[in-house]
């Protein structure tokens, strides 16, 4: 990092902290400054008074007063410090967290979907956001350390002025050379760390395989534990090799670091003070002691600040990441037309599309027209581009060429949020959330409880067993109810029923249902969504016979389209695929009859 960047990042950091929670910012600085000033006062000035009182054999009673003062100051300071640490700091950092989270949520929920594909942007920026609130609080703590150090050092200057300004010079010398050596050392450590990163990642991967229940069965049925443990042990051996490889340089610099500090403090400062004590006789034993204490005091502060410098840099880097995240400009932006709630007429006209960071076009001169109120099924082999069509229709990505129109209007002209939310969607990879069943179906929209219950009943969801207010458990495992695949899918379908949108997209809605449920689900969906536009995506062809029109997709183009009957009579790919699935049933049926 260049110096200019450092200054910019830290200024940005301080600015952010001051804006987001001024009370927290200023109170931290004041509390730490107070601690710095008062500690110096006690450890240097009061110590001096105490020692001089003893040395000069003044009245014992004045010493008693002094000591009582020390006790009083120490306890009061502790009161302030402890109140800050136990009350102010945790509460304010939570509040800071809340402010930051709100802003990040706002941005993250609307940022271009393609940012998730950009592994660089995602790993570098998005994932670091998770640590952003912590890093802000940590930075503030470090700023506090600096406030404490600066005040503590400034407070000791008058003393040095009186004894010998050289002392301050010595300390500075020690710290400056110390920082130079430390920088070298840090570089070595960083290099060592970099060569260890792959090993660290690998081992934490193995750790998670043993801890997650998803892997528990596989680990028991086969002898994977021994294979994984073998890798694990190897990795540690390799790590130790790395440590040894980098050992010599690191040891050398570490010794230098100690050397600098010991030479300056233990040889030069003590020697210099002894010189004054023995030769020039300008110092008394008490002042000798106080001067040494003051030097050590200053050195501690400076070291503390130097040690925290790297951490401050690291943390300010996070802040600049938040900044670049916040400044990201979306490329998928909406227009100002409000979509008419309802049943859409959808048309893809000569659409070309490839995913970001990919060379190959998924859709090539792709055209498709789904009429208002039509039930359209999109079928094709794995990887034919079926899900891509859904992603494009929902404007999760924008196309490279061509146009997609809804009700005759280019979808780019609709207000983005309103447009996306005007669809009812059941995704192939739908998620359940760790909230109540009711909230899982509403997903932030408030709906009538009765409507939800009715929808679930139609899907034969067992409401007796799992009530609307039961907590559903998902990846963060808690006491919530674990649902089977079939039950989960019913919830996903219920979302679309309850939402009651004019246009629905169903991406493999019945993939984990058994045959009974599957055919039931299909007929319910068709009945409930009568008159609405429906886009079915499926590779099970029983679903598709219900559709008004079927589009068979291969290599990014529509190869065949028409009703089931038409396509069967065409004797093309669709028929072939259908026959493969149907043949066994037919063969047996024929035997039966």
């Amino acid at each position, binding site marked *: 990092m260049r110096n200019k960047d450092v200054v910019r990042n830290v200024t940005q950091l301080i600015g952010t902290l001051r804006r987001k929670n001024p009370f927290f910012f200023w109170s931290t600085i004041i509390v730490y400054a107070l601690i710095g000033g008062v500690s110096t006062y006690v*450890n240097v000035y009061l110590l001096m008074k*105490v*020692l001089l009182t*003893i040395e000069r*054999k003044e009245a014992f009673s004045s*010493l008693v007063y002094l000591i009582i003062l020390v*006790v009083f100051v120490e306890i009061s300071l*502790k009161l302030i410090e*402890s109140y800050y640490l136990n*009350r102010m700091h*945790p*509460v304010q950092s939570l509040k800071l967290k809340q402010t930051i989270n*709100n802003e990040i949520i706002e941005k*993250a*929920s609307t940022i271009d979907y393609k940012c*998730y594909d950009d592994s660089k942007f995602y790993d570098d920026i998005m994932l670091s956001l998770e640590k952003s609130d912590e890093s802000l609080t940590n930075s503030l703590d470090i700023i506090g350390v600096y406030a404490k150090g600066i005040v503590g050092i400034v407070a000791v200057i008058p003393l040095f002025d009186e004894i010998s300004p050289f002392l301050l010079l010595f300390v500075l010398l020690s710290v400056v050379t110390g920082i130079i050596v430390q920088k070298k050392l840090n570089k070595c450590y960083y290099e060592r760390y970099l060569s260890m990163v792959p090993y660290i990642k690998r081992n934490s991967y193995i750790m998670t395989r043993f*801890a997650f*229940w*998803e*892997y*528990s069965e596989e680990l*028991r*049925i*086969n*002898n*994977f534990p*021994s*294979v*994984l*443990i073998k890798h694990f042990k190897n990795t*540690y*051996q390799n790590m130790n090799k790395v*440590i040894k490889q980098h050992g010599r340089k690191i040891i050398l610099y570490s*010794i230098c670091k*100690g050397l600098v500090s010991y030479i300056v403090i*233990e040889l030069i400062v003590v020697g210099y003070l*002894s010189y004054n004590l023995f030769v020039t006789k300008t110092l008394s*034993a008490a002042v000798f002691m106080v001067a040494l*204490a003051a030097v050590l005091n200053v050195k501690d502060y400076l070291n503390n600040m130097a040690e925290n410098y790297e951490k401050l840099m690291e943390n300010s880097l996070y802040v600049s990441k938040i900044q670049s995240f916040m400044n990201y400009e979306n490329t998928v932006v909406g227009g100002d037309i409000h979509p008419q709630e309802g049943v859409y007429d959808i048309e893809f006209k000569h659409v070309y599309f490839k995913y970001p960071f990919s060379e190959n076009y998924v859709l090539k001169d792709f055209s498709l027209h789904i009429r208002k109120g039509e039930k359209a099924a999109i079928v094709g082999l*794995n*990887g034919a581009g079926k899900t891509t069509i859904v992603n494009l229709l929902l404007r*999760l990505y924008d196309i490279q060429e061509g146009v997609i129109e809804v009700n005759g209007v280019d979808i780019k002209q609709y207000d983005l949020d309103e447009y996306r*939310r005007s669809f009812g969607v059941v995704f192939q*990879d*739908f998620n359940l*959330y760790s909230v109540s069943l009711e909230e899982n179906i509403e997903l932030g*929209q408030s709906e009538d409880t009765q409507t939800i219950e009715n929808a679930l009943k139609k899907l034969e969801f067992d409401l007796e067993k799992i009530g609307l207010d039961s907590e559903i458990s998902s990846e963060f*495992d808690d006491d919530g109810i674990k649902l089977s*695949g079939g039950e989960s899918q019913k919830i996903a379908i219920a*979302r679309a029923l309850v939402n009651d949108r004019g246009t629905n997209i169903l991406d493999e809605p019945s993939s984990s249902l058994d045959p*009974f*449920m599957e055919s039931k689900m299909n007929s319910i969906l068709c009945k409930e969504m009568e008159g609405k536009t429906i886009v079915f995506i499926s590779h099970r*062809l*029983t679903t598709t*016979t219900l559709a008004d029109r079927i589009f068979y997709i291969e290599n990014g183009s529509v190869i065949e389209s028409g009703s089931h009957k038409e396509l069967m*009579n065409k004797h093309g790919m669709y028929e072939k695929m259908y026959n493969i*699935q*149907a043949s066994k*049933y037919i063969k*047996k049926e024929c035997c039966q009859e």
Partner: protein
Amino acid sequence: MKKRNGRLVKKSIKVLFPRVALTTLMNVVNACVAFLVQIWLLKYILNSVGKHSFSHILLVLAIVFVIRLIISSINAYLNTTLYPCMDNSIRKSFQSYVFDFTAKSDIELYDNQEFFDRMHRVVFQSNERIIGLVNIYGNLIYSTVSLLLIGLYLFKASIILLVMIIVPVVINVLIGRIKNRRNYQKSLELTGETRKSEYFKRVIYQKKHAKDVRVTNIVGVVRKMLSGSIDQSISITKNYSSTNVFLDVTKKAVNSIAINIGIVLYVAYKSMVEDSINGTDVIVMIRAIWQLNENSSRMADNILQLHEQSLYIRDVKMFLNLRPSINISDKKDQKEISRFNNDIVFENVSFKYRNSKENVLKNVDLRIGKGQKIALVGTNGSGKTTLVKLLLRLYDPSEGVIKIDGEDIKNINYLNYRQLFGVELQAYRLFAISFKENIYIDKTPHNEQDLCNAIGIGGIIQRSSHGFETNVTKEFDETGENLSGGEEQKIALARAYAKEADIMVLDEPSSALDPIAENEMFKSMMEICKDKTLIMISHRLSSVLDSDCIFMLENGEIVEMGTHDELMNMSGKYSELFDVQAKSYIEGLKV
């Protein structure tokens, strides 16, 4: 149980001993050096005024410096190189033990939240906690030795002063324990909220939720939950704060009063009023006392940290005390079995999961003969997968017995038993290791070509940069190979096949395949399993037609069994299920 723990203890001692011994030695040395420089040297200098020359002092300084240099070089070597390596060895052997233990523990325990949380803590944290413990122990040695040296050297074992040093340490530890316990309580209360807020934050960041976030208003829910959880955290924090402040201040007051009034005033009195200690000594003493203050509170802190860590170590101990009931190898009279010769029999088997109220399987009787191809069918939740899990001994039946070749499977050594089965689970998993290891696991491959032909994975292997040695996924390796869902499923099938076991168990092996790939797969599977016993679960009835026997399950019971034709003639549940599926296809053909 004792024996097993004994082994761990022995092993831990072997790994930990050098590190602990070295840490002890070096901390004693370091404390002595610090004492030499910070107390002895100063006292020597101040007492030399008028006795020795300045050049003598310089000589002493130089000698001390050389000692310091040697010791700090040794420290540098230890801290930067030797300790990290030793720590890695500790991590390596301890963690491997924990892994092995975890993988052997009964899967049934995973349904127990308490066990699960503990297991997580042990797997993820116990390593660092053990090393942390060693470090804290080192610090404790250091602060104790420092305290002793100062006490003995300066105060010449004056009882009053020693009491004044010890009392604040004791009181600090006592108060600190209260605070520790409260903090532990607080962190328990906060864990729930922290977990919650982390979960909801993940919803915003993770790609898998990104579509929902854009198409629905889940953000509203997230925002509400997050701010609720932060408010809750704030109120928990507030609840604990005032008592904590009180405890902190009390600790400090005890310390400050004991040190300043008890010791400083006492020695000053001796010097100023009684004149029994000389003035220079008092100055050194007071300087030392200020330092003592630090040391004594540090010692108290170390004792407290030790106490805090021990709370977590208890977790580890409790975890490692669990005894698996399935994967045990040290039990006597366990049978060995090398081949499957005759039949598998379920006799009146019932089963219920730990947390469920109802039996998932009820009085199941079935027999699978050697070489038979059987299918388990039924609606969602009918118990098919559970039945397979019982056969594989992931769970043991609540009632009844399962016998293989006439022997209760509970009496067979588990590691030996599982060699009989080549399995593709419904929730199969691939690992980020090589294809070879994913398929052959710990065996040496010998029939790669057959395997590629049979399962149709030749293409995948060929396009991968290092063939069978290529890593699955690019997670750790740019040259790794990412697979689609269908391809992953084929690799999982290859794994079951490569085991060359007598019995193949396949749970929904085609769920991620498109119809054409599915068709191919079933064809090749029949070929592969020609001479084997095959147990298959499938939703798609078209794939089970040729089975020797189909078992139809409903609500945990076997309601029908027989060949496809027999079951169709029965016109029962199976034929109903089949017709539902067939009907739509038949209708589709009537065009």
